[in-house]
């Protein structure tokens, strides 16, 4: 019994210590971020590897998600003779929910895991320690540009995901199932509000980018510097990011749409 209590206490202490380290790390990163704007080259290189290299998976997944939405939506709407609202259905689902959330999940799987592995390996091979001894702050030189790149790419990727998804819905709905072209777009234009729908979706994706970037950076920076430690950290990045994104999505939805 005592043993169990002891273990519980130790686990809880460990958890809080990690949370504390994570928060301090975030503060350190945020403090270093303005300085990195003076060296845009570093950020642009990371935007390439974090953002551009994630584009393929985002576009392909977006297209398929949109096509499935078109198919499923049509089958339901047609029973009520409301198939002309297909555009609204697809657009609202994507901009409000699926765009930010699915893009964030894919982003965590593709870019987040890569970032954690990269930073964890840099730690394991003493590259971060070496920088410190060369009087170069690794948080500023390595972490800040990557964090900023993740933060900037996420909303853009989510927007691309939604746009491609709507196009996928259009392909299936209008191209394949014969929904009226004009009704598809005009209903969408009529019912999707810029402020209530699109902007709130963008806010979601900004929050997700911030959180996924933070988790990926911290897991890499805090990884046990061995092969096993880095692989565990990579797994943790994907799992924690997914859970946090889904959890936060509920909170944000309740805050923004739950009036």
């Amino acid at each position: 019994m005592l043993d169990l209590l002891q273990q519980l206490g130790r686990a809880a202490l460990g958890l809080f210590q990690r949370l504390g380290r994570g928060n301090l790390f975030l503060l350190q990163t945020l403090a270093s971020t303005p300085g990195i704007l003076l060296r845009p080259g570093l950020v642009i290189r990371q935007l390439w590897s974090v953002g551009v290299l994630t584009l393929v998976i985002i576009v392909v997944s977006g297209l398929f998600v949109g096509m499935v939405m078109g198919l499923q939506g049509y089958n339901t709407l047609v029973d009520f003779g409301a198939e002309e609202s297909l555009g609204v259905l697809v657009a609202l689902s994507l901009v409000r929910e699926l765009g930010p959330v699915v893009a964030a999940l894919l982003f965590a799987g593709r870019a987040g895991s890569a970032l954690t592995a990269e930073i964890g390996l840099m730690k394991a091979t003493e590259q971060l320690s070496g920088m410190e001894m060369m009087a170069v702050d690794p948080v500023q030189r390595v972490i800040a540009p990557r964090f900023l790149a993740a933060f900037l790419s996420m909303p853009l990727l989510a927007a691309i995901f939604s746009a491609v998804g709507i196009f996928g819905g259009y392909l299936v709905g209008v191209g394949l199932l014969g929904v009226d072209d004009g009704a598809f777009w005009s209903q969408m234009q009529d019912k999707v509000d810029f402020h209530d729908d699109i902007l709130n979706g963008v806010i979601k994706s900004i929050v997700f980018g911030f959180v996924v970037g933070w988790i990926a950076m911290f897991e890499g920076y805090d990884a046990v510097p061995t092969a096993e430690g880095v692989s565990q950290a990579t797994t943790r990045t994907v799992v924690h990011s997914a859970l946090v994104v889904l959890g936060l999505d509920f909170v944000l939805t309740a805050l923004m749409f739950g009036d």
Partner: protein
Amino acid sequence: MSQPVVQIRDLRFARGNRMIFDGIDLDIMPGSVTAIMGPSGTGKTTLLKLIGGQLRPLSGSIRVRGEEVQTLSRPALYRMRKRIGMLFQSGALLTDLNVFENVAFPIREHTRLPQALVRDLVLMKLEAVGLRGAAGLMPSELSGGMARRVALARAIALDPMMVLYDEPFTGQDPISMGVLVKLIRELNLALGMTSVVVSHDVREATAIADYAYLLSDGKIMNHGTPDALWGAESQWTRQFLNGLPDGPVAFHYPAAPFRDDLLGGAPR
């Protein structure tokens, strides 16, 4: 007599419950090559990290050029580190940059020199370690010995007053080992640096050192010039320097008597 570059007094440091250093005094004189030797796991690398301010001691003092390392502010600590080069055991080269860019890294980070000058400086450093021809290679294309020489070129990129070598000879073939021995000695002389070599390769380390410290179990077991150490009376020193399998450092890890263990019968 001149002031020591590094002066350590009554240094104590622990990891968890394990005492790594238990009251160490150590002086590193300017212009010298000082070897710090000891069995694996005695915290030789830890000592270098303490000198570089990456770790903080429990108690005691570490002074680099008269400045107390642990009380330095972060900018002051970084200023101090710019004057210290460190050669990591793994080389710690940045894997996404090629050899040239790796050596240029500290110069680019800390100075605003024109590109042409950076290029000349880097080529000079690479020439010094004999790898000017490898400037375009990536770290993954280098052999272990070459990687360490590139790391050495990077360590001297800012013309430091002192270079710390962490196990420079470990895992090197005899030729690379010879090259490194020659480089450490020659660079020390040519650049007027102070060198600290942490190693358990006794022969190489004593061959280039002016002074050596033997470290074990958190204490300094012996120190002196290499000649004096080779002639030392101490059993421990002899066992360590000659690599004898048994002696004051027992072959057996502490255990219950063998007989009791075998006949005791209780399964573990």
